[in-house]
């Protein structure tokens, strides 16, 4: 097992990993930018190293600074968290070349799955259903038009190097396709350094359901069931739950098997997530695989009792999975509400600033993963997630009641948050009945 792990991330996920290290008796080193200098979670790590100024490109995205910090602190491994360098195969390669274990998949698997066009192709080869669309990347608007007309509008224009909801645009006709294609191409080139795009049929009444997998270095792959992330805004998830109100045991098994097959074919190791769309007839389609720990992983942890971060560290250290597929049992229902420093009444504008008062909820069935507190200042440089409120109860009905109670207890003063939006959703009949699709937030609450 590792004796010292560096955490190349910030905020709540850095704290989540510090906690796992502490529990496993592993020393932790957390790197930070000047913007995070006063954050309390730094004190909970065994060591902290300032790596640069606030802009991510000069701190959390700067490979040489992070690896240099890893070298001076003499760590065995680096946990990248999510976002930043988590799905950067080059970072994983640099770590390897410096004899530092990267806690995640190999650069080869990550590179293969990071290219969404290749991932789709792999799924098709394995006879896993994908949405109709481009067979290869669309090189220009002509090829995109061809693909769009073949599958029929509306279509999604997606960046091959994108993922996590970034670099996606919807087109309803030829004109919007061409316009959006050119804009998406420029955006993808700038954001992902890969301007390849592809076309995928857009399903209007769909649910976003993803399967969590774990794979060790000995060919053992298990899935831990699904998370339903249908409640989204602009492809950014707001509420996640497990089990999904629409997934039956047989659908879970089918989707789980598909995710396991894909992970095996990509020689995947560590924790990963296969994302699917499920249409209103219960048919599922593979969209992409995320080669990292997901923000919403606690939902799976609550229903399966598996500590995903701990498993990630164990797998990276060369240990075998301690359980098989038959040992995975799902208990009760879990939900997560993402608490973002955003103003839902003002176009979800990010709201950095000082949290004057923070009174977190508690009581039975409540878990809160957060790095913030009264007096904490949310820096403007990073994403707006300030906490994840997770509940777990025997049934969905009870879980919903606990979540409503917890949201009502939650006091945040000083910055607007998504808490009031969650309260409205939790009171909405369609959500209570489990009858939403991915357009729910936008159609009921406006864009």
């Amino acid at each position, binding site marked *: 097992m590792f004796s010292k792990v560096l955490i190349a991330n910030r905020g709540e996920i850095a704290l989540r990993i510090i906690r796992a290290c502490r529990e496993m008796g592993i020393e932790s080193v957390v790197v930070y930018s000047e913007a995070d200098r006063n954050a309390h979670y730094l004190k909970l*790590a065994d*060591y*902290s190293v300032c790596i*640069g100024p606030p802009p991510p490109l000069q701190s959390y995205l700067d490979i*040489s600074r992070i690896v240099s910090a890893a070298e001076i602190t003499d760590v065995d491994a680096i946990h990248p968290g999510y976002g930043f360098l988590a799905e950067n195969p080059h970072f994983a390669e640099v770590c390897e070349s410096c004899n530092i274990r990267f806690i995640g998949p190999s650069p080869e698997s990550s590179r293969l799955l990071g290219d969404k066009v290749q991932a789709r192709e792999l799924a098709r080869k394995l006879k896993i259903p994908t949405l109709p669309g481009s067979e290869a990347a669309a090189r220009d608007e002509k090829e995109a038009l061809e693909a769009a007309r073949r599958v029929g509008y509306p279509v999604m224009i997606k960046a091959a190097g994108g993922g996590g909801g970034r670099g996606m645009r919807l087109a309803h006709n030829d004109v919007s396709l061409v316009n959006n294609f050119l804009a998406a191409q420029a955006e993808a080139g700038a954001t992902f350094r890969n301007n390849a795009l592809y076309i995928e049929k857009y399903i209007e009444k769909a649910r976003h359901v993803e399967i969590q997998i774990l794979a060790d270095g000995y060919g053992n792959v298990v899935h831990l069931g699904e998370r339903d992330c249908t409640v989204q805004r602009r492809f950014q998830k707001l509420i996640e739950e497990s089990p999904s109100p629409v997934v039956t045991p047989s659908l879970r098994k089918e989707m789980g098997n598909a995710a396991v097959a894909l992970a095996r074919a990509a020689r995947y190791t560590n924790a990963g997530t296969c994302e699917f769309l499920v249409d209103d007839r219960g048919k599922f389609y593979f969209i992409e695989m995320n080669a990292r720990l997901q923000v919403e992983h606690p939902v799976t942890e609550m229903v399966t009792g598996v500590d995903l971060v701990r498993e990630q560290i164990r797998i990276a250290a060369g240990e075998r999975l301690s359980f098989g597929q038959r040992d995975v049992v799902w208990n009760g229902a879990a939900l997560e509400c993402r608490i973002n420093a955003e103003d839902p009444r003002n176009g979800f504008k990010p709201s950095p600033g000082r949290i004057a008062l923070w009174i977190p909820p508690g009581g039975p069935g409540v878990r809160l993963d957060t790095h913030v507190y009264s007096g904490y200042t949310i820096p403007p440089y990073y994403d707006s997630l300030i906490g994840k409120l997770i509940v777990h109860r025997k049934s969905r009905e009870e879980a919903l009641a606990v979540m409503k109670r917890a949201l009502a207890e939650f006091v945040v003063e000083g910055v607007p948050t998504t808490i009031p939006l969650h309260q409205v959703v939790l009171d909405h009949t369609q959500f209570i009945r489990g009858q939403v699709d991915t357009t729910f937030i936008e159609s009921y609450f406006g864009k």
Partner: protein
Amino acid sequence: MDWDEVTRILRLMEENRLVEFEYEDGGRRIRLRRAETHVPIPHAPAAPGPQAAPQSPATPGAGPAGGELVRFRSPLVGTFYRAARPDAEPFVNVGDEVTPDKVLCIIEAMKVMNEVKAEMTGVVREILAKNSQAVEYGEPLFVIEKK
């Protein structure tokens, strides 16, 4: 709290090997932190490291000759070297005059030796980092009296 009190606290901190001191009174808050001679900073349990001289809480301040004392901070995270090779003369010593192009030290980051230049004209008054010490981004390396 006046200057004498601050000085007294600094002395007490040194005598008792305290690294940090925080005091709050009627909305005014003062936080004193002595430089540590090694990074990363261990948090718990707090191991008393080798002791550094107490530093003035304010930077820049007025030097003895009236020039502005500037704390020169590390632009990189890495390993600090005072000389180009272990057997070579240090780039600078206390009392040396420096010009903007003068190399002060090397910070090794990922096996790359990065020369760090003074970027100002002045005199080296203090060398805060030890040779081959690990340094953080922003860690004070030198005190330079700016001219």
